[in-house]
Each structure stands twice: as structure tokens, then as C-alpha cells.
């Protein structure tokens, strides 16, 4: 046969391939470019007041709980699920932390924080377990659970209150080494590096992408689908707990009813961050920047003296336009 088959002539292993990196991570890079543009827009909106390290810090502080919620939602959506109770979980952890940590020492607060991380994992695993065991769609189970946890948050704390020691708060609001490095950013980086990346590049991470990509093929590849789904929800629960602790550290109090706002924004951040709602595609790093973008837009509006409600409109329009561009690019790629 003289047919030269594409298959047999593919070039062997290549070195660093800038073009492929750009294609594979193009979306994430784009989101970070958008973030830089928005920060510049923020500085411009502040004028004539100068943009200082304090402003950078407050951007991170304002976004921190949502960033963690977006990380949580990413992992779950990549696995082919969705968790509509994430925001409420953030609120539950937030109020528990604020009520337990009030008048406690820093050391005790840290202990409580670790305990609550475990609680987050357990709550997440319960969500995942219910989805797997009942076979009811993820969206239904987690919506129902959001009412449960929402009620629990209000039982624990009827109105915003509680507190946390200053040292604990400075974990979220302080700076690290330089005044230009907000400690919140350091914590995001640490959590990513310690809790997600090791999984991402090992079999458990591949399994999460696999079940989101094609559940039947994942099963045929020997993946324990049920266990992996529960694991994705549990990881999500851990990140949600981090979000709740971040809310306690950045605000110094517990707020029982911030939940649903965070849930919806976490889904928006996931979509904007390049994760496919169909599962299997994307990452956690993109949605982190997307969450920051989503918090910046209303702030810029406020500084410009525009009705914050328009901020919502612009935020929504931004998501639609960006996602639409993504869809168009995908269509072009296919044809």
C-alpha cells in the first residue's frame, strides 16, 4: 500500500511547544489577561487617587470566599456534576467558625479551622454520596441540600455576628513579605499547590477528568466511577470550607445568608474560567482569575458612580459575551 496514513507519520515526542500551550491553555491565559485589564480599569476608576498596595489587597480580600467557591465548583463540574449548595456550605462554615472562634486564642482558632476543613469534606462527601446512591440528578440533590444547609446556617446564627481573633483575621487581610503580596493570594496559591495540583497530575485527578469526559469509557478504563464522583464532591467540600473560613477571616464575622449569591457566582466563575459545564474540560486555575474578575466589575462600577445594579447587568453581559466567543471559537475549530 502506498497510502501515507496520518497516523503512522505523526511526529515523535516534541520539546516545549509554545503553540500547543497557547491552544491548550488559551482560555486560562485569556482570563488572566482580562483580569489584568480589569485591575488597570480599577486603577483608572480610582483616579485621581493613586492605586496602592492597599487597593490590591482589598481586591483579593473582597474576592477570597468566591475564589474558593469557584475552585470547589470547578472540581465538581469537571467531574460531570454541579453543586448548588456550595455557597450555602460556605455560609455554614462561616457562621460556625465565627461563633466558635469569638474570644478564642489564635491557636484555638487554627484548631477550629482544621476541624471545619474536615467538616467541609464530610458535607461534600454527603452531597456526592446522595447523588451516587439515589441516582437523582446532581442539580436536584444539591438544590435540596442547599435548603437544608441554608436552614442550618440560620439556626446557628440568626443575624450577622460572632467574631474571630485578629491574628486569624490577618491571615486573610494581611500581607506577606512585601506590602504588594496580599496574604489571601498566598493562601490561594498554597491551597492550589498543596490540595489540588498533586491530585491533578496523578491518577485521582485523571479519574475526575475521565468521569466528566465520558463516564462509560472511564468505567471501561477501570475507574471506580461512584467513588470518584464522591471524591470530587468531597474535594469541593474542602474548598467550600476554605471559602467559609476565608469569609470569617476577611469579614471578622459570620453572615448566614450570603450563600446563594456565592453559589450562582461560583457557577459563573467556572464558566468564565473555561470549564465546560458538560464536564471533563478546563481547570481550577482559570476560575480563580474569573472569580476575581467577577468581583472587580461591580467595584469599578461603584467607583465610577454608576448604580451597582448596572454592575450586575455588565457582569452578566460579560459572561454571555465571553462564553459566546468561546462557543464561536469551538464551532470554527470543528468546521
Amino acid at each position: 500500500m502506498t497510502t501515507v496514513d496520518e497516523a503512522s507519520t505523526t511526529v515523535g515526542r516534541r520539546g516545549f511547544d509554545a503553540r500547543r500551550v497557547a491552544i491548550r491553555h488559551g482560555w486560562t491565559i485569556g482570563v488572566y489577561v482580562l483580569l489584568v485589564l480589569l485591575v488597570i480599569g480599577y486603577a483608572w476608576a480610582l483616579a485621581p487617587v493613586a492605586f496602592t498596595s492597599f487597593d490590591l489587597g482589598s481586591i483579593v480580600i473582597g474576592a477570597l470566599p468566591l475564589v474558593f467557591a469557584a475552585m470547589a465548583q470547578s472540581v465538581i463540574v469537571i467531574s460531570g456534576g454541579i453543586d448548588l449548595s456550595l455557597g450555602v456550605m460556605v455560609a455554614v462554615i462561616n457562621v460556625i467558625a465565627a461563633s466558635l472562634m469569638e474570644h478564642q486564642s489564635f491557636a484555638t482558632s487554627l484548631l477550629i479551622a482544621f476541624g471545619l476543613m474536615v467538616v467541609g469534606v464530610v458535607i461534600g462527601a454527603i452531597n456526592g454520596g446522595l447523588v451516587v446512591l439515589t441516582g437523582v440528578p446532581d442539580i436536584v440533590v444539591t438544590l435540596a441540600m442547599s435548603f437544608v444547609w441554608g436552614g442550618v446556617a440560620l439556626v446557628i446564627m440568626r443575624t450577622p455576628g460572632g467574631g474571630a481573633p485578629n491574628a486569624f483575621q490577618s491571615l486573610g487581610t494581611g500581607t506577606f513579605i512585601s506590602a504588594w503580596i496580599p496574604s489571601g493570594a498566598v493562601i490561594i496559591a498554597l491551597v492550589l499547590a498543596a490540595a489540588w495540583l498533586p491530585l491533578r497530575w496523578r491518577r485521582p485527578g485523571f479519574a475526575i477528568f475521565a468521569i466528566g469526559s465520558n463516564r462509560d469509557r472511564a468505567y471501561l478504563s477501570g475507574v471506580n466511577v461512584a467513588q470518584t464522583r464522591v471524591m470530587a464532591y468531597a474535594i469541593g467540600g474542602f474548598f467550600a470550607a476554605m471559602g467559609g473560613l476565608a469569609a470569617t477571616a476577611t469579614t471578622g464575622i459570620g453572615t448566614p445568608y450570603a450563600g446563594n449569591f456565592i453559589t450562582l457566582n461560583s457557577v459563573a466563575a467556572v464558566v468564565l474560567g473555561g470549564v465546560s459545564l458538560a464536564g471533563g474540560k478546563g481547570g481550577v486555575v482559570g476560575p480563580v482569575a474569573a472569580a476575581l474578575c467577577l468581583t472587580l466589575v461591580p467595584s469599578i462600577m461603584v467607583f465610577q458612580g454608576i448604580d451597582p445594579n448596572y454592575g450586575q447587568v455588565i457582569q452578566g453581559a460579560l459572561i454571555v459575551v465571553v462564553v459566546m466567543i468561546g462557543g464561536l471559537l469551538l464551532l470554527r475549530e470543528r468546521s
Partner: protein
Amino acid sequence: MPFLEVQNVAKRYGPVVALKSADLVVEPGEVHALLGANGAGKSTLVKILTGVIRHDSGTITVDGKPVRIGSPEGARKVGFAPVFQDPAMLPDLTVAQNLRLTRTDIGATREWLDRMELTVDLTEMTADLPLPTLRMLDLARALARDPQLLMLDEITAALPSDLAEKVFAVMREWRDRGRSVLFISHRLAEVTANCDRASVLRDGRTVGTLVPKSGEEEKIVELMLGTTRSELAESIGADSGGEATVVEATAPKVAVGEPQLEVRNLVVGDDADGISFELRAGEILGVAALEGQGQDLLFDYLAGQRRPSGGEMVVAGRPFSPRTPFEAIRSGVVLVPADRMLALLPQRPIRENIASPLYNRVSRWGPINRRDETRRVQKAIDALSIDTRAQRQARRLSGGNQQKLTIARWLAAGFTTMLCFDPTRGIDVGTKRQIYALLRELAEAGAAVLLFTSELPEIQLVCDRTIVVYRGAVTGEMPASEADEPALLKAAHGLGKVEAAA
């Protein structure tokens, strides 16, 4: 001692018996072929052996020890490595990640790729690789597990011949190492050239094991056929009373005998010249083919579900290139799919299901004419004698009645050409008979009917004429009187006149 011994394995899905009693013995150091016509139970047996489904009864013995294969992982543990019909790698992971996911030795996989002289970048996303490469990767991955038994299910179907040769070389090497290969293929020439023994399944039973020799393909075909033809013909009754009456709306205005549908050089597979045929008004033209020879694409193109890459279609003398099913239906070309759920609104009542194509007409803005609708629907129901006791939801109907519903929709709406893709799949004999009679009556009323069927005896029972498609080309055309099963199967395996070219 044989490596693998399968005895009396059976599997049923509800009332449908997929496998009655399968037997299979694979010795170490042999390449064993598993053969059978469509629906004989091959894929069910393969699914059982690979742990995708569990058998109901019978025993599977590996190396003298009885085993229960509960999962794909379990199949690997007893030394089986399957290469499935469809690529098994996950599209959103790189090749290397896929290998790590399945705990496959990457070095060993690379070694096998090198030996087959394939260079694949393992850091490439699986979704970006062409299909033949994916097949070869699946093979290399299976080999890297160093299995006792390599199972290849239709692996050559998507491969160009140079790569297929590499697969055969690997099979021979595996045999020389004293290991076993189970080879499943529709291509008899490949089986006679590469296999030591072959087991033949028919109607869910193993009917024999033989040594396949070149030139004796027809013997194998006979074994695959058995007595099914006479049994089926008997149960159906070639002539039928025909209580059905065709609704006037279906009667086309075309005089019988004019070409209604012409297909010229339509590319549906490997063959660059594609397939060509003519379908006349008042005629039922059969399409006979084994699985995956391009018949799905042919029907998809005609029904407007996909656009062909090459070739022409002509309907009633006018060029026909529908971009959507809507356009096809507007030109009078309608589809009755094998999967009824693609055609029905399962949650909705019978009446709405039948009336649904009526709502398509752009000229019918405004309220739906209930009277007219009721009249048309009732006529279609009467014509097909649909059991209407389960009025409320189409999904509560039996399979046969559901299939009638998919035809009834077009009776109410009117059409000129009906494409039937395996319309009798999985329905009972009585209903089959009614559907045959109905198709005949539609043709007598002037409709053109194109019928693909996986049950070859149906060709003679229903059609006037048939074409046989093999690897995207027409390898036979004959009047129904000559289209007995041996003739059809021979052509469907690409034997006969095209054999010289291969």
C-alpha cells in the same frame, strides 16, 4: 488444557434473549475467530468476557479455574486485554494520562508502538488524534498489559490496510509466544488468512467450530446462516391478508415506475466512488449490509441529518441536498429509524405523536385545525391497527406499536419516499408481518421505499430489488427472487466479483 473455556453461557435482557447458549474454547498459542451474522450474539459474548455485563447462567473457565468477571478491571485480572469496537481512550486526557489512568506501563506501550513502527506523541490530547491512531494506541495499550488473551473486536474496521497488516503481524507474534488471540471481524478474508480456528454463533448459540481455510468462505457463510431463513419465512408467512389500508394523503401524485430517488457516487465509506442506485416510485428497494459498511451514513445523508462529503442525490428529478431533516421532510423524504425513541415523543399521547409532523407546515400558522387533525390521526391509527389502550403516553406502548406509531406519523402527514432503517428490530413476528404488509401497500399506492434490514430474510419477503453495500461501495444488485441469504451474505462480505480486486 485450553486457556479459556466458555460453556452454556446465556444472557437475556428482559424478554429478549441475547445469548442462548454460547460455547467457546480458546487454546494457548492460537488465533481464534468469533463469527456470526448481525444479532447472533457476538457482541453480547464479548461484553460478558470483558466484564461490561454479567451473564445469567453458564460457566467461564480460565486456566482450568472457574471465574466470575464482574468488571472491566476483573477481566484484566484474569489475563484478558480487550480492544473494543470503539476507541476506549478518554478524549479530554492526553495519551500518557490515559495510560496512567489505566495503570498501564508507559515504557511498554512505547515499545509496542516502536515495534509497530508508529510514532505517536504521548503528550497529545486524545481528542486531537485521528481514529486509526486511536485504534493502534488501544492495541498497544492492550499489548503493554502482556495479556494471556488479546481480544480484538472489529479492530480492522476503521484501519487502512497498511495498519491492518501490522495488527495481523502482532496477532501472529502473540500466537508464537504461546498466548491467545480472540479475533472478531466481519471480513471473512481476514479470518481465513490469519486465524487457526473459528467459532460460529447463530441465534445466540455456538453452532460449530472449524478451521477456516481460504476458498471455503462459503462453508462458513452456510454455517452462519443455518435454517433461519425457513423458520422466519414460516413464522411470517410470505403472503399476508393486509388488513391495512393506506390513507389517501400518502398516495403520491407520481405515476408508478418513475425514478423517485437517485443516488450518484455518494461517499459513505472507504470507497471514493461511493454508492449509486435508483429507487422508483412504487418500488421497495432493499439495502443489505453487515454492520458499519456505510449504510448509517447513507440514511443520515438522505434524511438530512448530515451532509455528504461527495456525491449527488436527486429526488423527483430535482437535486436534493437537505441541510436538516426539516428540509428532507419538506421534499417528501421521511425516515423511520431503528431506534424508535429518536422518532417518538415518549411522554406525549398517541394522537400528538402522530400529528407532530403536521405541526411542521409553515403555511399553517394560527390555531391547529382539530377536526382535520383528528381525521388524519384516526385514519393512520386504523390503517396500522395501533393498539390505543395506552392513550396517554407513547412510551407505554409495546415496541411493535411504537414502531407502528413512527410509520403512522408519516401516513398522517404525507410523503413520497420512505427511508426505513431496520424498522423491525426487536419487535414481534405478528407486528413484523403487519409492517411488511403496510410497506407493500405504501409501495402499491405509489410511494418509494428504501429499506435497510439487518435480518437478511426480510429482503426477499418485503423488497422488489436489493443492493448490497460493503465498505462504502455497492457490491451487488439483484432482484428479490435471487436475493437468498447465501447470495446476500457473499456480497455483504465483499466476496464474489470484488474479491479479485482485494
